[in-house]
């Protein structure tokens, strides 16, 4: 009997810290464990006793890459609890801010984290040496997202202008209009990015995913919609916990999220695209068609193309909002006084997938309980499934090659492990 253990003690180019152990016995994959060390769950405890108004700013600090997602899910959840309706231009401005985050986050992943894998390079620093023009294009594109965040969020990183009910200050028409030339350039750069990544030598694999994302009546989903799946699930966000549950696993400080009575599922760009490609704007649809990707993409490596298509969408959607913008009379809808205990929940589409928040408020408006289900904790079990298949296909590989294949499989899903709970270590045990 031979047993092999593959161990990655530190996974590069993902957000956070974690480790991976794979146990192989007699050429069979016995066990795959994606272990996550950092306990983000403390944030949920940390929120207790804080005013509901503080949730957007506190939860934004869970992640340096997708703070807007945390702000949006927490604002919408509080507004649900307080029975508030926020629409019109404030709603549009929220979509615009989210577009900025998608541009920033996806571009970072496509160019600096994912691209080295397809070009046989170890990291972004080497990529910048060998392909400086590509990295410059990526940085210029990302900067357009940063500028959106700066103008609308008050600053580029960790926006401070978001509040329950809307914004502390809405930009003037001229302030937003000044972003137009850069966003037009960004749209072109985004289309160029799709053409560039579509030509990459991608591995030809397909996984049988249950895709889960929001779906909205008219829009490619960002802030609102029903929760739908590729296997027929269709529920309001308020029923999220009836369809999905979090289970504890000993090897991870992140909870695994699974379909109740079922197994793993996938959130994120592949899921959103499969379930909402008909809601993309014309430029993004044209870019997807030119890239030759089908309406449902089951190849995790092709997520690099789908992310690039979503960046095209974020740029064209941002331009649409900019062109129709009129400064609202008030920057926010004032929340009503809180006198009774309330519960509110919401889900929005973070760059990495559906981000669910639920809060219970006491009569004084203090947070009595918080539940945050991050995209990566939802994808964790599905990533383990992908890894099992990668190892099964690659049993003949030596340890360094197998380890590399595993790390790539994880990076396809751009996991934000520090959201879900910091970085990966791989252990392969072979026997």
């Amino acid at each position: 009997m031979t047993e092999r253990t593959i161990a990655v003690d530190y996974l590069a180019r993902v957000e956070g810290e974690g480790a991976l152990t794979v146990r192989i016995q007699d050429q069979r994959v016995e066990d795959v464990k994606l272990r996550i060390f950092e306990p983000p769950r403390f944030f949920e405890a940390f929120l207790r006793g804080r005013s509901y108004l503080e949730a957007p700013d506190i939860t934004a600090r869970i992640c340096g890459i997708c703070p807007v997602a945390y702000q949006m899910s927490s604002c919408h959840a509080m507004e649900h609890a307080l029975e508030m309706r926020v629409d019109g231009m404030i709603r549009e401005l929220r979509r615009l801010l989210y577009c900025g985050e998608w541009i920033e986050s996806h571009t970072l992943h496509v160019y600096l984290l994912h691209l080295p894998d397809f070009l046989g390079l170890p990291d972004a620093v080497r990529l910048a040496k060998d392909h400086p023009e590509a990295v410059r294009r990526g940085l210029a594109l990302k900067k357009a997202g940063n500028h959106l965040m700066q103008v609308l969020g008050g600053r580029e990183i960790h926006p401070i202008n978001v509040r329950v009910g809307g914004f502390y200050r809405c930009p003037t028409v001229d302030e937003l209009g000044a972003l137009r030339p850069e966003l037009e350039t960004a749209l072109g750069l985004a289309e160029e990015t799709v053409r560039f990544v579509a030509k990459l030598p991608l591995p030809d694999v397909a996984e049988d995913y249950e895709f889960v994302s929001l779906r909205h009546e008219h829009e490619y989903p960002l802030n609102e919609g029903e929760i739908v799946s590729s296997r027929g699930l269709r529920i309001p966000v308020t029923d999220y916990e009836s369809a999905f549950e979090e289970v504890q696993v000993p090897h991870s400080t992140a909870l695994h999220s699974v379909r109740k009575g079922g197994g793993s599922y996938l959130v994120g760009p592949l899921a959103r695209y499969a379930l909402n490609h008909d809601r993309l704007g014309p430029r993004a649809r044209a870019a997807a068609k030119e890239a030759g990707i089908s309406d449902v993409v089951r190849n995790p490596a092709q997520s690099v193309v789908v992310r690039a298509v979503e960046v095209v969408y974020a740029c064209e959607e941002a331009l649409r909002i900019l062109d129709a913008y009129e400064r609202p009379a008030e920057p926010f809808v004032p929340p009503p006084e809180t006198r009774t205990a309330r519960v509110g929940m919401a889900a929005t589409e973070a760059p990495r997938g559906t981000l669910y928040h639920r809060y219970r408020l006491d009569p004084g408006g203090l947070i009595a309980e918080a539940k945050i289900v991050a995209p990566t904790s939802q994808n964790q079990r599905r990533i383990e499934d992908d890894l099992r298949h990668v190892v099964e296909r690659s049993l003949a590989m030596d340890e360094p090659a197998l380890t590399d294949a595993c790390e790539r499989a994880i990076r396809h899903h751009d996991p934000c492990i520090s959201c879900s709970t910091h970085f990966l270590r791989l252990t392969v045990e072979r026997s």
Partner: protein
Amino acid sequence: MPTGPTGRPARVVIGVGNPHRRDDRCGLDVLRTLAGRVPPDVALFEAPADATALLDLWADRELAIVVDAVRSDRPAGTLHRWALGEGALPTELGGTSTHGLGIAEAVGLGRSLDRLPRRLTVLGIEAADLGVGEGLTPSVARAVVGAAHAVLRELASRPGREA
């Protein structure tokens, strides 16, 4: 925030950290200590330890000083310093990274893409507790004052002629 006469200030101090992760916030506290006490050509910025954000913040500047929490085997509150031209950035000053791209990668990318400031100093404060919560470890809180003075000394020092 002080700005220079030509729009983009020539010098920048960048504080890195998360205010809700105890000692990790010390870089931000150094910025707060410095507010109103720096010359008008110095801008103060808060940033995550994210390479691309750092590139944007420090490119084309005369001087950039980055202040961050670090973990090594030194006592809590120990002040670490590295400057461009002193060889490789020590591992402990590489930054707790966002998506694997921290201060070390920012320096590497900056070199390849010609996006480094003319002078760059990284100051690290040895942290003890990076858990979720608020409030600094006492020795780290004392080091914040020392680091702010170190930044002011860096700002007051005349750059040597560079070849």
